[in-house]
């Protein structure tokens, strides 16, 4: 709970910070807090990825971009009501929807009684892999992972197409 409160505090910091360097530092903090929260939620694989992606790759990328562009954010010229309206509207729908969700931590909910949990019993006899996250990732839902790899491929080629400098002779 402390973690989550800190997360919220960091988010407010990100909204208010005008220096983009400060934002980068806060993103790193945010990611590590998020990763810690994920460990509490038993998602160790996800936490590891979030820490390396959020605090590692994202930070490097944003820093690289700032190096190539500039670091200060100009204040917005007008205080728009529309963004606030959009955000509050979305929040209202979320509150409405989420308030009907099953209680946190319960074991008898639909999520925890249907497909998800069936993997726990199936993984070792069917694939021989004790880390169920790996077996679901690479086998049961392997096609999603292929799609995910295709996304990385697309982003990689896309960045190259946009940023790679070609030699003049080409």
């Amino acid at each position, binding site marked *: 709970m402390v973690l989550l409160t800190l997360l919220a505090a960091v988010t407010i910091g990100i909204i208010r910070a005008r220096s983009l360097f400060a934002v980068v530092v806060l993103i790193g903090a945010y990611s590590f807090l998020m990763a810690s929260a994920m460990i509490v939620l038993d998602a160790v694989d996800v936490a590891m990825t979030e820490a390396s992606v959020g605090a590692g790759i994202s930070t490097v990328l944003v820093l690289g971009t700032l190096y190539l562009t500039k670091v200060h954010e100009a204040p917005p010229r007008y205080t728009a009501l529309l963004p606030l309206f959009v955000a509050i509207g979305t929040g209202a729908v979320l509150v409405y929807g989420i308030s009907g969700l099953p209680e946190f931590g319960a074991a008898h909910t639909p999520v925890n009684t249907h497909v998800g949990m069936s993997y726990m019993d199936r993984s070792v006899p069917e694939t021989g892999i004790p880390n169920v996250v*790996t*077996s679901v990732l*690479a*086998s049961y839902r392997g096609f999603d*992972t292929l799609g995910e790899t295709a996304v990385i491929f697309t982003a990689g080629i896309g960045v*190259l197409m946009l940023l790679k*400098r070609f030699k003049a002779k080409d």
Partner: protein
Amino acid sequence: MRLDVLLRVASKLFLPFILMFALYVQFHGDYGPGGGFQAGVIVAAAVVLYAIIFGLDEAHKVVPSAVVEAMVPLGVLIFAGVGVVNMIGGDNFLNYTHLAHDQIHGQEWGVFLVEFGVLVTVSGTMVAIFYAFAGRGKA
């Protein structure tokens, strides 16, 4: 850049361990947290560290950008290729059952190859993106 001998020596010492850790994360993914993606990020981090300490040109000599750019599609190709091999065997796409003599070993081989594909694409892409961003600043 002459003053940072300490950095150079230290990073040379560290690099093998970083790569070892990446391999551990890669192969131990069946039993503990980790897998191709995380390992790929660590490998890329090692290359990025090398490039930061020794300079971009030096890094290009060790890991040429042509290799990196080929790795980007190659990993996905390994992944999809495993699926296609299953199809030729008469199974559905990505059904690893008949990669080895029984189902468990088939699955283990399938997962191993697929994770390797992920490793190749992820590390290739991360380094390629880093090169692209870094190369942009020079001119």
